[in-house]
């Protein structure tokens, strides 16, 4: 195959995989055209599920599979895809980085649109540098921490990083802007404008979702993403070269690669074009030793070499290529940091001792310790939640649980029959449950309690039964008692006072969500009573 064709094949594959990634990301939501045959629904309970395999890229990611295996002793669904990538890497090197990884493609595109440096400065900058060891340090930290029992992989894993950034920050950012625009246009008195804006809204709603979602701490996720993109101005594919732990892992496996860069130093005129266009500073020049572990398999050097001094060939001789240059410091430092972080994460006592009342996990979540062994903080559950209740944590789960999911009931609530979050979770940190299980067991995520000082009937301000009305359990967990209270003016007021039956309450939080007392609602949900924990209980 000619080099030019190879490069075009790479570009095509990169585009296809990036588009597929974005397609699956956009599809990670309840569509508007779901039809449940109501004549079937009479006899059986149907659970709403997504049509697309939205967790596919997470299954493709071997780092994610390995870390879940090491920390939670759990083989994730579709781990064979990850295994296939490992096998592919053993055969062809870091082909995943060059051809498949959507995050890599984005960096590649940014670097291609606006190269970091020009001419000779780029050649000098593209020499191998000690900074490239950082990614091995990252990898070792994540793997060791996972073995000790805290899975932080998702914070740095490129697939989780990209999904979180686009799903929680970039798309909602655009969505919020669009919504403001549509609302303004819809308020206009000109019929034509209304019609156009409504048409555009309907057209765009499959992409941004029917409800424009927002997320807590998303500003931080967004800034981090933009910073990482900006780093491409310093070095091409900065993330892949210096930081990516998945790249490091695949680099280690690429030692056995049979697809190798073959150099012909006698043809080389030292024009340095190969170095200039190298994406991973893998020393492609014929007089240097090729760094297999650093090579992204982009085939740029092969393509630009005017003298045919470089070529990729299959070599069947069982010879190992050059060892990945990790450096002792990265290994020792990684071991040390990876070992310490899980213990540091427990120092705030969030896992064993105290549990934050605001930490309401999605229905079907594992017990906290097991949860942190599997959760990748990828944002899949947050993206899919139809009421926008699931948000990334900031401090509620402690340092160890940064960006793990929690429900904010003033923003959404847990729909009684909905079990979507568990069905899309790539690792099983949120177990897949059926609506029947959720209702009949029941799976509780917390408990509601009434703040009598705020409550309208309890404080004598007005009659109200909204929390009881919206309570989805049967019989209702919120019940009413007729009573007479005195208004602020002193006159008598006939009201029905709400009470919570903790035995029946599942903590779905719709009462908090719909409570007319805005700001801090008069009925609120706390995590205590959640069925995933033996300890965090109220009733005997």
């Amino acid at each position, binding site marked *: 195959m000619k080099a030019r064709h190879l490069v075009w094949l790479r570009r095509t594959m990169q585009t296809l995989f990036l588009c597929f990634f974005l397609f699956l990301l956009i599809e990670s939501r309840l569509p508007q055209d779901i*039809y*449940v045959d109501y004549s079937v629904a009479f006899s059986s309970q149907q659970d709403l599920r997504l049509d697309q395999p939205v967790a596919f890229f997470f299954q493709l990611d071997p780092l994610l599979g390995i870390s879940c295996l090491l920390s939670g002793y759990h083989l994730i669904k579709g781990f064979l895809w990850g295994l296939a990538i490992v096998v592919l890497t053993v055969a062809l090197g870091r082909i995943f980085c060059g051809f498949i990884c959507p995050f890599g493609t984005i960096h590649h595109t940014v670097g291609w649109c606006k190269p970091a440096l020009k001419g000779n400065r780029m050649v000098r900058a593209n020499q191998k540098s000690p900074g490239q060891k950082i990614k091995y340090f990252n990898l070792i930290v994540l793997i060791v921490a996972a073995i000790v029992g805290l899975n932080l992989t998702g914070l740095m894993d490129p697939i989780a990083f990209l999904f979180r950034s686009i799903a929680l920050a970039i798309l909602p950012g655009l969505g919020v802007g669009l919504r403001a625009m549509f609302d303004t246009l819809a308020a206009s008195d000109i019929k034509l404008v209304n019609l156009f804006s409504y048409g555009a809204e309907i057209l765009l709603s499959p992409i941004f979702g029917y409800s424009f979602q927002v997320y807590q701490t998303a500003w931080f996720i967004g800034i981090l993403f933009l910073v990482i993109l900006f780093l491409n101005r310093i070095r091409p594919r900065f993330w892949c070269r210096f930081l990516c732990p998945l790249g490091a892992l695949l680099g280690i496996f690429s030692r056995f690669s049979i697809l190798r860069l073959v150099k012909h130093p006698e043809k080389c005129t030292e024009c340095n074009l190969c170095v200039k266009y190298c994406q991973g500073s893998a020393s492609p020049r014929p007089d240097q030793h090729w760094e297999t572990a650093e090579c992204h398999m982009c085939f740029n050097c092969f393509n630009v070499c005017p003298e045919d001094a470089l070529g990729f060939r299959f070599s069947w001789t069982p010879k190992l290529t050059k060892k990945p240059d990790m450096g002792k410091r990265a290994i020792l430092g990684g071991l040390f940091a990876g070992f310490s972080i899980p213990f540091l994460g427990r120092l705030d006592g969030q896992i064993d001792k105290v549990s934050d009342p605001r930490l309401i996990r999605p229905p079907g979540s594992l017990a906290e310790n097991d949860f942190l062994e599997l959760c990748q903080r990828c944002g899949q559950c947050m993206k899919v939640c139809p009421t926008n209740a699931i948000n990334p944590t900031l401090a509620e789960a402690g340092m160890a649980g940064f960006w793990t999911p929690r429900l904010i009931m003033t923003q959404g609530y847990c729909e009684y029959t909905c079990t979507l979050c568990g069905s899309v979770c790539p690792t099983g940190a949120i177990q897949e449950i059926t609506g029947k299980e959720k209702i009949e067991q029941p799976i509780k995520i917390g408990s509601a309690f009434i703040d009598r000082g705020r409550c309208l009937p309890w404080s004598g301000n007005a009659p109200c039964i909204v929390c009881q009305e919206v309570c989805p359990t*049967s019989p209702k967990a919120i019940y009413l008692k007729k009573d007479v209270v005195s208004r602020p003016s002193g006159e008598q007021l006939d009201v029905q006072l709400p009470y919570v039956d903790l035995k029946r309450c599942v903590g779905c939080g719709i009462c908090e969500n719909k409570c*007319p007392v805005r700001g801090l609602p008069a009925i609120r949900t706390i995590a205590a009573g959640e069925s995933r924990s033996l300890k965090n209980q109220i009733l005997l």
Partner: protein
Amino acid sequence: MNFNKPITRRESIRKLVKLSGSLAFAGAATWPIQKPSVAKAASENKKFMIEGIRQNEEYSIKSLTRTVFEAAGGIHRFVSNGDVVVIKPNLSWARRPELAATTNPQVLEAVIELCQEAGAKRVRIADNTIHDARQCFALSGAGMVAKNTGADLIYPRSSLMRKMGLKGNRLDIWPVYKPLIEADVLINLPVAKHHSLSGLTLGMKNWIGGVGGSRWSLHQDINQSIVDLANFFQPTVTLIDAIRIMTRNGPSGGSTSYVSFKNTLILSDDPVAGDAKAALMFNREPTKVAFIRMAQRQGLGTYDFAKLDQQKVVL
């Protein structure tokens, strides 16, 4: 226009301004032209109320719906050729039809088909739901109905809410769900069920699902709110679905043990009369239901059945 000539920035801005100006003018010019409402003219006649009961299970719910409309003089009495018909069912909850928390999909389907046969240009289903609309529409069967019949299922969005003066006793400026007020024919299609505050959820209460905003505060004066909203919306006709009624634990229910089969449909162009008739099915005197009493006092209609053109059809 010469497209070969390069256009300067200033020129392009000028052209854009001109273009948008003329568009705005065209929009403004066509804006005030609206169809005169037909519903008002018919209201001078004596109002009617039809109660349809299905005793023989061999007849389908669809044929019961058709019979009820035929008894009222046919669907043509309400829907003319080229009308935009908006149906307001009660789809508030993501519950299956058997739990009777939402309007029966078979009745909904029958009404849509009738409207289409009468030559309606568009039939729209519009409701501002309480649960997530996607799940409400899917589980209640309305999504399937819309797909089968080709009716438009309108999803509630913030851009579809328009602030309007309700001119009620209690409610003043409130965001109203736009599709409902842009209809030529508005059909109210509620389900009859229990409600823990107002006593019953029937036709007039269905309009709470026609407004947005902080509608949870309506419960602080629920009866007056219901009457104000019923006074504002004034549908062409109300068809109360009492095929299944929820007798306890309303309005959301959640168990079939609260549901009883009545196999009844009540069609009326008097919103108060329809609600009063349905209230009797729950063994409640219309005068004891506060919002029905208040609505009669404000002249929205009557629960004195003798003043109406009454009919009862049994299948």
